[in-house]
C-alpha cells in the first residue's frame, strides 16, 4: 500500500515538475507564475513523500532494501 501511494506521489511530483517546465518555456508573467506555483507543489509533495516513507519504515510497513541478514550463496565452484 505504501509502495502504491509512494508511486502515485512520485508521478504527481513529475507532473508538477512538468508543468513547471511548461511555465518556464512559455515565459512572461503568466509562465513565470505557473512555473513558481508548480515548483511549490512539487516541493510540498516531495516533503510529504519523504515523511511518508520514513514513517512507513518506522512503523515497519516497509522494510529497507539494504537490510539482509545473510547473503545467499549464488555460485558453486566446480569440483574437479
Amino acid at each position, binding site marked *: 500500500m505504501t509502495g502504491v501511494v509512494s508511486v502515485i506521489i512520485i508521478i504527481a511530483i513529475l507532473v508538477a515538475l512538468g508543468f513547471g517546465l511548461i511555465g518556464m518555456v512559455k515565459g512572461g508573467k503568466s509562465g513565470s507564475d505557473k512555473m*513558481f506555483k508548480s515548483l511549490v507543489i512539487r516541493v510540498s509533495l516531495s516533503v510529504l513523500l519523504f515523511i511518508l516513507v520514513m514513517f512507513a519504515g518506522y512503523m515497519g510497513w516497509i522494510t529497507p532494501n539494504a537490510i539482509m541478514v545473510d547473503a545467499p550463496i*549464488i*555460485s*558453486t565452484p566446480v569440483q574437479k
Partner: protein
Amino acid sequence: MSEQEYYVPHGTYWPIIGSIGVSTLFVGFANQMHGVEWGGSVMALGLAITVFMMFGWFGQVVNESTNGIYNKQVDRSFRWGMSWFIFSEVMFFAAFFGALFYARALSVPWLGGADNNIFTPDLWNAFSASWHQMAFLAPGTELQSGTVMSFPDVPASGIATATPADVVDPWGLPALNTALLLASGVTLTFAHHALRAGHRNQIVGWLVATIALGVAFLGFQIMEYSHAYHDGLKLTSGIYGSTFYMLTGFHGFHVTVGAIMLTVILYRVQKGHFDADNHFGFEGVAWYWHFVDVVWLGLFVFVYWL
C-alpha cells in the same frame, strides 16, 4: 534590437576551443584508463581548456544579455534550448532507472529461474535470485549447459559474500542526504519567491543556504561512497553495485554541476543581473536543481526502500 529583426550571432571562436578542450579531455581520459603515463596530465589540460571555454563563452552571453543586445526571439530560443537540454537529462536518467527496473523486476528473477520458458531456460541452477545480494562469482562457476564461466578478476579463492546491508543503511546517511536535498529545494523556492518579490538580500541568503545544503549533500555522499567501497560494494559487485554506483554517481555529478550553476547565479544576483520580471537564468538553474532533487527522491525510494 527590434522585435522583428532576427538575431544573428556574431562570429566566435569559442566552439572550436570547446571542441579542442573536450577532445583533449577524452583522449587523456581514455589513456588514463589504459594506464598510460601522460593520460592524467592530458586529461587535466583538457578539463582546463573546457572550463576556460565555459567561462569565456557563458561570460560573453551574459555580457550580451546585460547590454540589452537580445530581444524576445533570443529569449524564446534560450528557453527552448534549456527545455531540450532538460529533455536529454530526463532521458539520461530514465535509461538508468529503466535499467534498474529491468534488472530487478525481470532479468535477475529470470536468472533465478522465474517464469521459465523457452526464452528463459534455467541458465544457472545454483543461482538464487535476490535483488539485494552482490553477485559474487567463484572461479570456475558452472552453468547448467556445462559451460564454465571464467572471470579473470576473481581470485582463485573466490570472493567472500557480503550484502549491501553491511554497507548501506537507509536510515543513516541516505535519509540525512534526502533531508538535506529536500531542504535545499525548499530554500531555493524561498529564493525564487524573494526574486519575484524583488528582495535581493533575501535571495542571496536563501541561495547561499541552498548551495551550502548541496555541498553538505556531496560531502556526505563522498563519506558514504568511501564507507561502501571499503566494505566491498563496488561497480563490479554485480548488478546491484553497477546500478547503485551508476545512478548515485551520475546524480552526484549533477548535484556538483547544479551547485556550480547556483554559485554563478548567486554572483549574477549580486551583480544585479536579474529583476522580478526578467530572470530566465535563475529559472533555468532553479528548474534543473528541482529536477536533480526529484531524481534523488526517486533513488532514495526505489534503490533504498521499495
